[in-house]
């Protein structure tokens, strides 16, 4: 077997492996349609929250959102009971949104549907993805524009928990 042929076989095996490794985390049938929301409703939710809130603005058509979704899922699981995670799906379709939540297993935190993108605009954000960090009671502590990385997310959650403490 020539070296080139071996490389081709190896690449094909890797490609098949890659395809096999990625699959929907949860069945889409278990994901209900997202509840529509407004800026006022989100402001009220933040004001009433007894826990700090991480509010992530996403859309199923947004490629960078795909990149940070697994991180947010893991962070929500790790901070469960201490930090409330809220997703705002903007300028999207219900089917696409449900597929996105199912694909990344994001059913561990609450999501709302914002067809016009009014919520992030009200919070002072532009574009997607956006991640806002709120203290209990709704005070904005930090806002991150663009894809959030592990270190930044962990740092901001740590800051929120220390404010709460």
């Amino acid at each position: 077997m020539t070296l080139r042929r071996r490389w081709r076989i190896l690449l094909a095996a890797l490609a098949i492996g890659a395809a096999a490794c990625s699959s929907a985390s949860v069945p889409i049938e278990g994901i209900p349609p997202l509840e529509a929301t407004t800026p006022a409703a989100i402001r009220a939710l933040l004001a009433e929250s007894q826990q700090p809130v991480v509010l992530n603005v996403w859309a199923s058509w947004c490629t960078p959102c795909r990149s940070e979704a697994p991180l947010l899922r893991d962070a929500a699981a790790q901070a469960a009971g201490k930090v409330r995670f809220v997703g705002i799906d903007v300028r999207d379709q219900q089917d696409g949104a449900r597929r996105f939540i199912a694909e990344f297993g994001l059913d561990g935190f609450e999501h709302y549907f914002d067809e016009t993108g009014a919520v992030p605009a009200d919070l002072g954000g532009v574009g997607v993805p956006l991640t806002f960090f709120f203290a209990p009671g709704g005070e904005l502590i930090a806002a991150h524009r663009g894809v959030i990385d592990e270190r930044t997310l962990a740092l901001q959650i740590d800051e929120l928990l220390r404010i709460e403490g």
Partner: protein
Amino acid sequence: MEFSLLGAAAAGLAGMYVVLRWEAGGGNAAESTRSLWDLLLTAAIVGLVVGRVASMLGGGTNPLTHPGDILIVRGGVDTRTAAAAALLTAVVVARRNLMPRLDAAAPAALAGLAGWQAGCLARGACLGTPTGLPWGMPQPGSAIGRHPVELYAALLLVVGVVALMAWKRRRPPPGTITGVALGWAGAVRLVTEPLRLGIGGGPEWWYGAGIALGCAVAAWGFLRRRTEPDGPAQP
């Protein structure tokens, strides 16, 4: 790649380049600088891409159906697979004169890592766990001082670079520079890891494995020297 990450990558490349230039005609043969630069650059790019793909697979994204995601490096790079892929690439590229070439490139590789770590200043990702020490740095808008852990790591790596460059001029057995550099990189990561903040469990065992591999390579170099009295070949 976002501009802040490009800044960190540029710092890493600058670190590699400065050390290679510094060692040209000293620790390394002057004519080898170009090929060593190619070796390091190839290993770094392959490591970055493989680490990114591994991170995507770990997160449930298929890189075949979403190839554009590979470019979003800020979304995560799996350190373990990136390091393994970079090391393997370096071995494949340098295979014709393996140990002398890896030894020649090792200090520059450490300097590249140091530059990448120091690039946290551009990325806004230097800070770790809280500290009351006077050099603790707060987040903008926060009063909580934190360890600038990435800068600690960069500083320790620079110490390793200086020590290896000095040691290399004494012509140690082939493989020992590579082994010590690998072990040092793993050790720096391991000792700074408790000061870092992350999501989920840390891969500390992997850094231990890097240290063990580095020690094994260095020991192999010393033992081989006993049976081959000739000095190391120039890269």
